[in-house]
């Protein structure tokens, strides 16, 4: 691959600003690269070469006519996870039930990126309705890890993470409900951030679990993630949970030293991780010590309950959110069934995949009469305790540091038979969503030539601090500058 496609957003932006490359050239080169390699990796579901080139030409013309100013994302090819609505462009959420669905409107983030003259290169493959940790639940086929095509890229944003790692886009947007940005970013060796809940509007994101879902960037550096947040964040009246707060530049503090700041390392996050991940993690701690940060060993005892709390709350919300797929107003409709009710059940049964049906069943069970108090209410009460535990901790430390994934990328098919084993892939990322915290996963080493990630976690609204720590780490390491040989 040409080095051009491995550059960060800032580096590509500089080339465009200095007229060393046109948007069309960058997009054309990206397209050539996708055509050569994505057939095998399968990170892109819907790829519209023609309109990407036309858009690039159009932007080049506007630049030369002085109609637009070149901003940080101008002319850069972006891949949007295919649960993010794009007007007049098929949006499937990786599901048979939405095959052929053409949204009549743009999501908030799509609109924001288009306004900044970003170029949509395609829609990223994902686990159906973002439910999965390996991208093996997509109706449109598995995504393969660019570092080793026998292995999974992680999930559910497997396509967006694999694509950024392989150079198929300058950056991508994913969604993170229990780790769906950070875990694949870790497994594919790129930087991926889940912002504070509400920082980015969910309008036009096909809902999975509304109290946990959050859109965020996947890119080649923490600084890039900050640049993207500058564009996609903000209060949106179409998402009543979006936050009204003026953060200013998300990269405002990235060059500030972390000297004398405190990093908490919660013991429980190392309990169930592979020994190679632990060893690599210790090396990362040494790097932060070298930067002058103070490392604080601490305990978050409720961590062990987070996975179960999540697997009650997320399926409960999903069972409710996914009730809209009835084959009436949009989506797949079965040709069978004599009554509306029968036709609806058949449409859903034929349209949803196995994992989605499993989660709808779990969620319906935990919300049903007689079980609500024992499951859903109990989980939301423990959620309160988990949130409080984090709050107390952040009185003592600035950020937390933990592994992102308990293992490196596993082999395709290795966990598909056992849902509980698959769910455990998100042990280290799930508690963060439960408490609505910001966290970024950044590359921090390799084992068996496969990338390892660490995550920096901040208090709510501490997104800038998270970026500061991540960028300081990336200034003294080069893990994020390694790219797979395709």
């Amino acid at each position, binding site marked *: 691959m040409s080095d051009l496609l491995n550059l960060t957003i800032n580096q590509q932006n500089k080339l465009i600003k200095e007229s060393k490359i046109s948007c069309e050239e960058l997009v054309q080169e990206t397209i050539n690269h996708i055509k050569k390699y994505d057939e095998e990796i399968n990170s892109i579901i819907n790829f519209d070469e023609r309109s990407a080139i036309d858009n690039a030409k159009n932007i080049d013309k506007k630049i030369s006519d002085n109609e637009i100013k070149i901003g940080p994302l101008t002319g850069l090819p972006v891949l949007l996870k295919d649960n993010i609505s794009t007007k007049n462009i098929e949006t499937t959420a990786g599901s048979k039930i939405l095959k052929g*669905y*053409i949204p*009549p*409107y743009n999501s908030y983030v799509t609109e924001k990126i288009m306004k900044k003259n970003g170029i949509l290169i395609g829609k990223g493959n994902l686990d159906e309705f973002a439910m999965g940790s390996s991208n093996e639940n997509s109706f449109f086929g598995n995504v393969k890890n660019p570092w080793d095509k026998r292995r999974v890229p992680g999930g559910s944003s497997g396509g967006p993470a694999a694509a950024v790692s392989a150079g198929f886009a300058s950056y991508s947007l994913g969604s993170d409900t229990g780790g769906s940005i950070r875990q694949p970013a870790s497994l594919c060796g790129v930087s991926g951030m889940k912002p504070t*809940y*509400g920082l980015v509007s969910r309008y036009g994101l096909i809902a999975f679990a509304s*109290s946990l879902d959050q859109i965020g960037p996947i890119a080649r550096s923490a600084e890039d993630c900050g640049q993207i947040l500058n564009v996609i964040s903000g209060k949106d*009246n179409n998402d*009543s*949970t979006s*936050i009204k707060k003026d953060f200013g530049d998300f990269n405002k503090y990235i060059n500030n030293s972390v000297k004398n700041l405190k990093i908490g390392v919660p013991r429980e996050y190392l309990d169930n991780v592979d020994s190679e991940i632990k060893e690599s993690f210790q090396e990362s701690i040494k790097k932060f010590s070298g930067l002058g940060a103070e490392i604080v060993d601490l305990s978050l005892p*409720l961590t062990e*309950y987070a996975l*179960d*709390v999540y*697997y*009650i709350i997320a399926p409960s919300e999903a*069972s409710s959110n996914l*009730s809209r797929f*009835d*084959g*009436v*107003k*949009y*989506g797949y409709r079965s040709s069978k069934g*004599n*009554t*509306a*009710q*029968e*036709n609806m*059940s*058949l449409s*859903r*049964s034929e349209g*949803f995949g*196995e994992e989605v*049906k*499993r989660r*709808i*069943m*779990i969620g*319906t*069970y*935990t919300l*049903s009469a007689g079980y609500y108090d*024992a*499951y859903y209410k*109990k*989980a*939301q*009460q*423990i*959620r*309160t*305790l988990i949130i409080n535990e984090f709050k107390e901790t952040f009185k003592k430390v600035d950020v937390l540091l933990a592994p992102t994934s308990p293992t490196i990328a596993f082999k395709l098919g290795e966990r598909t038979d056992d*849902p*509980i084993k698959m769910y455990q892939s998100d042990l280290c990322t799930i508690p963060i969503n439960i408490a*609505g915290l910001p966290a970024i996963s950044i590359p921090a080493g390799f084992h068996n030539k496969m990338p390892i990630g660490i995550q920096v976690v901040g208090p*709510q609204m501490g997104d800038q601090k998270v970026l500061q720590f991540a960028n300081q780490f990336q200034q003294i390491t080069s893990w994020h500058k390694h790219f797979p040989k395709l």
Partner: protein
Amino acid sequence: MKISKEEFEKIANLSALKFDIENNDKLIDDLGRILSRFQSLQKIDTTNVAPTAHVTNLVNSLREDKDSQILNEKDVLSNAKEINMQQVKIPRVFDNE
């Protein structure tokens, strides 16, 4: 924890999903195993703990009571399978009997 076939059928019905019950032992078994895991949560004392209503403590999000149109009729119906007189057509709601 074992889920009985009757219970499974009841939940499937509430979920508006149809399964071939006889050939779904693994799914029934997996559900039982997943629900068993949740029993561990009963160990935690949650007396007087309020369930989380919103993670960033958002209370009310109000707006002026003004109507607005986001999508027009044509756009709203653009993905429906069958339309008749600008309405979505579906199979009959009641059976003949």
